[in-house]
């Protein structure tokens, strides 16, 4: 009779294989032998075969044909069989296979077995991979075992109960009576798992949480005993008595004390005691301290205790052990919102961590640094952060750049500093900057009116050498397009003006257009910039015309469309060109709300800044979206006016009979983000060349829109009169509207082209 080989021999054989192919061959041979052995229903050697199968499974080979065999082993009477059978079930089966339900009966019998180890095996398996059906069937058995006096079984039953609760939350109630005496145990294993069970129940259900709050004094007492008990050889780890249990209890105390004054007060003393008495020379001591600090920060502790906690974290930051530093940075990140001032004291240490070699520590330090920037330290912090941006790994650059932009926007001490910082970021990490940064930057530059010359000069110099970084090139082309006249005029107050001719500027823009490195979007920017320069430059208009006409046959559809439109502008609508390509108006800038305690802006910053009402703290997220709305509104202003122009032009073109028969229907000019603006048109009774447009703005979001100002612009041939609006606040939920009357006069009654 063929006797299947021992596991040991299989392992030895496989280890002699010198190549992957050899190993695969051996495994396949063995699998075939095992399969035939399984078919023969060989009871004696089944356990051996399954053991070998599990080994091969670990190496990565398929072993699913052993699943049923595991079930047969579980049903066997021998402990050896059961042991390997349960292990196989845990490794090979999961609830997605229907086969697993066959285990339920076996487990049920084994839970009532006479040998505690068999019961233990059953509990272990149920706790690892029990499906919801199995858990429902067997919850009663588990609950019974939770009340047994055998501590070995009790602790396993507790963890099994946690798994049951996770799978079938409704069964939580069932385990409640059994928990009554759990904390009275002397056995630390049972105590430990009981605390885990209590933690799970408290996290899942607020009722349970309220119910278990009364256990706080008992937990405090247990913790105290652990600390004061002196040396106990069984539970000692590096001189501390059962640190694992201490950490668990601290975590449960954290959950119980959160948002509850009485519990928090009951815990204050013990927390202070643990914080001051724990040995910190070994990792275990630090683990306990770390947990204590987290608990102190999370419950309603008194301020002295909180300061103690932050100081412990500060000490951790100076520790040589990297793990401790990492852990300290993580917890400081969690607490920086609530205890900002305390964390500020450790700012220099945190900034030093930016220079650490460890990637995980650097990331944490970067996030924390951004959280700590405020009006006072912004210059120093920015210097460090820019240096970090320069030298950090590529995976950090995008986040760092965005963070710097945000911080600079909130706390810039002066416009020039702001622009310099942006320039630094664009030149250092230009290709990692996020796409949405470009329009934000453009808006920012537009608003710093006095810095235009300086900005365009610096941008020009930046792209002179290298125009591969797309965001930088986009911003630069836009600026050159807008302020090219300032560039060539050689006026610059902030720094030494450079001498640039119109041709040189056009050279750069053309090379951007031609370059292979330029993205399609960038090319669009460059072409528009060239076009705008036709009104700002005097001698090179013909060159511009030529460039624009070349791109009229470009393969890129976007470029082609632009070029054709610009060409038309040159040919047929030359009289409109100056008006259309005028300088962009200052866009309404919106300040974002920084952390409420520390917003300090220098008086120099932008008088053009629109002071928005800070949203009440509870509504912070909604306020944020409102601010985004306003931002997008600003950028949509141009879009809206172009819509309006088109309407007006069509109106003016319309022959009189059209007017008399139908009138122009009112339109919804804008309907986005909850803001809806309707235009109704009519001719003025007094003067037929005047169109009277009534706008009605309504707001369907949850917040009132304050400081709503409608602006409009028309081509030079038209005249515009804006009468005062009914109010500047649009109430929420469509409960009211703002009405404003606009009069547009078209003196020549010339029909405009559709393109305007």
């Amino acid at each position, binding site marked *: 009779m063929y006797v299947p080989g021992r596991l040991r021999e299989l392992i030895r054989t496989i280890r002699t294989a010198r190549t992957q192919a050899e190993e695969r061959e051996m495994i396949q041979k063995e699998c075939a032998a095992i399969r035939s052995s399984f078919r023969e229903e060989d009871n004696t050697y089944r*356990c051996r075969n399954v053991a070998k199968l599990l080994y091969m499974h670990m190496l990565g080979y398929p072993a699913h044909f052993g699943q049923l065999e595991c079930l047969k082993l579980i049903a066997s009477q021998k*402990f050896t069989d059961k042991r390997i059978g349960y292990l196989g079930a845990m490794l090979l089966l999961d609830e997605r296979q229907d086969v697993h339900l066959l285990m339920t009966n076996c487990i049920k019998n084994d839970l009532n077995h006479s040998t505690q180890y068999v019961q233990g095996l059953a509990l272990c398996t149920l706790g690892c991979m029990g499906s919801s059906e199995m858990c429902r069937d067997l919850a009663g058995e588990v609950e019974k075992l939770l009340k047994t006096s055998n501590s070995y079984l009790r602790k396993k039953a507790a*963890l*099994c109960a946690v798994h049951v609760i996770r799978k079938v939350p409704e069964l939580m109630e069932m385990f409640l009576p059994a928990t009554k005496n759990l904390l009275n145990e002397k056995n630390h294993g049972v105590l430990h*798992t009981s605390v885990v069970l209590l933690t799970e129940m408290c996290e899942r259900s607020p009722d349970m949480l309220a119910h278990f709050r009364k256990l706080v004094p008992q937990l405090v007492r247990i913790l105290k005993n652990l600390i004061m008990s002196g040396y106990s050889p069984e539970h000692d780890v590096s001189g501390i008595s059962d640190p694992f249990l201490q950490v668990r209890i601290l975590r449960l105390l954290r959950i119980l004390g959160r948002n509850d004054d009485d519990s928090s007060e009951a815990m204050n003393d013990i927390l202070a005691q643990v914080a001051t008495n724990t040995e910190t020379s070994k990792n275990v001591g630090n683990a306990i301290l770390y947990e204590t600090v987290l608990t102190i920060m999370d419950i309603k502790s008194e301020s002295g205790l909180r300061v103690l906690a932050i100081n412990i974290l500060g000490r951790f930051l100076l520790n040589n052990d990297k793990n401790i530093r990492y852990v300290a940075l993580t917890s400081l990140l969690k607490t920086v919102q609530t205890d900002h001032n305390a964390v500020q004291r450790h700012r220099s240490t945190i900034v030093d961590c930016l220079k650490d070699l460890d990637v*995980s520590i650097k990331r944490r330090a970067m996030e924390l640094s951004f959280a700590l920037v405020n009006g006072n330290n912004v210059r120093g912090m920015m210097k460090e952060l820019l240096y970090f941006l320069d030298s950090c790994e590529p995976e950090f650059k995008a986040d760092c750049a965005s963070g710097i932009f945000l911080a600079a926007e909130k706390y810039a001490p002066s416009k020039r500093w702001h622009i310099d910082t942006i320039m630094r970021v664009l030149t250092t990490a230009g290709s990692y900057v996020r796409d949405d940064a470009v329009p934000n930057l453009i808006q920012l530059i537009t608003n710093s009116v006095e810095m235009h010359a300086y900005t365009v000069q610096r941008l020009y110099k930046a792209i002179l050498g290298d125009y591969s970084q797309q965001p930088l090139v986009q911003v630069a082309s836009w600026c050159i397009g807008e302020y090219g006249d300032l560039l060539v005029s050689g006026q610059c107050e902030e720094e030494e003006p450079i001498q640039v001719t119109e041709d040189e500027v056009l050279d750069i823009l053309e090379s951007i257009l031609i370059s292979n490195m330029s993205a399609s979007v960038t090319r669009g920017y460059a072409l528009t910039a060239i076009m705008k320069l036709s009104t700002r430059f005097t001698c090179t208009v013909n060159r511009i015309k030529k460039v624009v006409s070349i791109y009229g046959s470009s393969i890129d559809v976007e470029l082609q469309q632009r070029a054709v439109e610009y060409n038309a502008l040159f040919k047929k609508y030359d009289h409109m060109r100056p008006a259309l390509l005028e300088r962009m108006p200052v866009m309404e800038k919106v300040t974002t709300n920084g952390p409420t305690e520390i917003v300090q802006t220098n008086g120099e910053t932008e008088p053009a800044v629109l002071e928005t009402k800070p949203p009440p703290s509870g509504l912070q997220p909604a306020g944020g979206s409102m601010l985004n709305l306003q931002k997008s509104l600003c950028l949509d202003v141009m879009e809206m006016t172009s819509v309006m122009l088109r309407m007006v032009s069509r109106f003016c073109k319309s022959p009189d009979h059209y007017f008399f028969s139908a009138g122009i229907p009112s339109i919804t000019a804008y309907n986005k983000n909850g803001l809806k603006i309707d235009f109704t048109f009519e001719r003025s009774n007094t003067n037929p060349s005047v169109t009277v447009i009534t706008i009605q703005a309504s707001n369907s979001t949850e917040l009132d829109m304050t400081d709503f100002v409608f602006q409009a612009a028309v081509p030079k041939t038209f005249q515009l009169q804006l009468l005062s609006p009914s109010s500047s606040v649009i109430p929420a939920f469509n409960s009211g509207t703002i009405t404003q009357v606009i009069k547009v006069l078209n003196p020549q009654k010339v029909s405009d082209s559709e393109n305007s």
Partner: protein
Amino acid sequence: MINAVLVFNNHGKPRLVRFYQHLAEEVQQQLIRETFHLVLKRDEHICNFLECGSLFGGADYKLIYRHYATLYFVFCVDSSESELGILDLIQVFVETLDKCFENVCELDLIFHMDKVHYILQEVVIGGMVLETNMNEIVAQAEAQNKLEKAEGGLSAAPSRAVSAVKNINLPEIPRNINIGDINIKVPSLSQFM
């Protein structure tokens, strides 16, 4: 909750693989490979925590690892476990293995994979920590081993003394050149040769 316990050697060969969540086989093997690559890149002086969010399908997960001679012990945990606590747990697990196998080395893990699983079962159930007292764990594992031996053990043949079983390996040891620099305490060969 502990998501996975992985032990592999310096070349990425798995020595112990235990997942506490349901994953297909190929996914498991891929995770082992990628974890190995992540951990191999780490310098000696870097902290023992790695973020591995995309690997295990959740941004919450961290890899906590320790390097002992030729073996990496890696625990994948989520935020409900204390990082420093898990480091200590790894230490407890390794010391327990040491006690059970008498100066454990990689060979012990290779040839007694099932025993290592049983010991792990006494420490962690369903991703949660069960017992941290080394003596308890060792005592319980020993008791169960005795039960098994009384029945005839895995080999289903009457068992001899444990040392006799260990002797079978002796001729093999000089041939296993891939054990590299492990600290092996081999009983003096002269007695048995």
